């Protein structure tokens, strides 16, 4: 990640309604955030004269607008790291979704898994390593094609924890 790339990113975020962005590529992670618009709940109309309260409310609705125009930020919430588990490859090898070429896949998108459920095989040097789930939940994404080589720590599955 070079400095120019970083500067460009900052500019994009400054001029956008995004308040936070996290990018991961080639093992490097960068997280940028800017102050959010002031939270309005702190202003209690009851503590101020009626006229002032009206003014505040107007200001509030004016301020609220940009906040409401940030659906991209809101959508991210159900996919925060807390409820999504990423299963990574513990080794370099080849990813297999089934125990044998004609056999059914261990899991598919939508499969419910629990700790110890076998998710796939990583084969290296004719050693078949069963990769087990460490969490309970639902498979929401399979990130690697069957019979493809994988690197150490490469994400393989996304599991929505239950």
């Amino acid at each position, binding site marked *: 990640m070079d400095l120019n790339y970083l500067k460009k990113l900052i500019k994009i975020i400054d001029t956008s309604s995004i308040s936070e962005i996290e990018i991961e590529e080639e093992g490097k992670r960068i997280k940028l955030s800017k102050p959010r618009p002031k939270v309005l709940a702190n202003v209690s109309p009851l503590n101020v004269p009626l006229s002032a309260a009206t003014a505040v409310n107007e200001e509030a609705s004016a301020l609220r607008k940009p906040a409401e125009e940030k659906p991209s930020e809101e959508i991210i919430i159900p996919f925060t790291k807390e409820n999504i588990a990423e299963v990574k490859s513990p*080794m370099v090898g080849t990813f297999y979704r089934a125990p044998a070429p004609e056999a059914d896949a261990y899991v598919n998108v939508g499969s419910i898994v629990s700790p110890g459920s076998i998710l796939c095989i990583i084969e290296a040097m004719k050693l*078949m390593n069963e990769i*087990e789930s460490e969490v309970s939940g639902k498979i929401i994404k399979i990130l690697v094609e069957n019979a493809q*080589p994988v690197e150490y720590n490469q994400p393989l599955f996304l599991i929505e924890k239950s």
Partner: protein
Amino acid sequence: MNIESLNNNLVKENLLSRIVFLDEVDSTNKFASVNYAELPHDTLIITEFQKMGKGRFERKWESSKGTNLMFTLLKELKIDIDKIHNVIFYTSYMLFNTLKEILDDTLGKNLLLKWPNDVLLNRKKTAGILLEVKNLKQPVKLFIIGIGLNVNETDFQSDNIVSATSLKKETGKEFSREDILEKFIINFYKNYNLLKESDKLIDEWKKNSFGIDEKISFSQYEDDKEKSGYIKDIDHDGAIMIRFDDGSVKKFYSGEIKIKY
């Protein structure tokens, strides 16, 4: 198969905890993989006839009933995850040494290891090994070590006639399967130190390996296109280095090497 003598020499000597003899089974590895929770470690599963080869790589292990050795050893080993491939090099090297003891000196010289898991006699495959690992993230892992060795087989199908062989086919002699199995188990259980010395293991393995600087073809995964090249080296981490015909050198942790006959 004389199970009595195996019991006397391996179980009573406290090497194995139990021998499970199956007249017929799909595959001894599959049996072990399904039943491992009920079987004590150091169990040896042996069969006279395997109805199917084990899945992905062992295609179909050709076998007439009662002529070959097909067995699986359940072995718990404390080994780090980045060293587990040593178990495959160790197993094939112990099998190689066992066959060397059994064959006379002249023929013994024609034995070679082939990356990562085969034993060749006169450049033809006589044994194959397939390993599965359970409890990968635990310090003590369970290894399901499956071995198929062509001993007294003489009936080879035409598509395998070039690349597969048996001890009998190459020597004209019958061999005692019990004797080979016993010697292998003893070798396996008595040389653990080598399993801990990664670099030494790979170096010794490499000295007896087929094909450094030999012309081969290589495919990295199922359905991958075969590319021809030369074996350049085997790294201390177990990976194979291949120099392809376009001059590029690449390192692989999985794949299939084909000998050019």
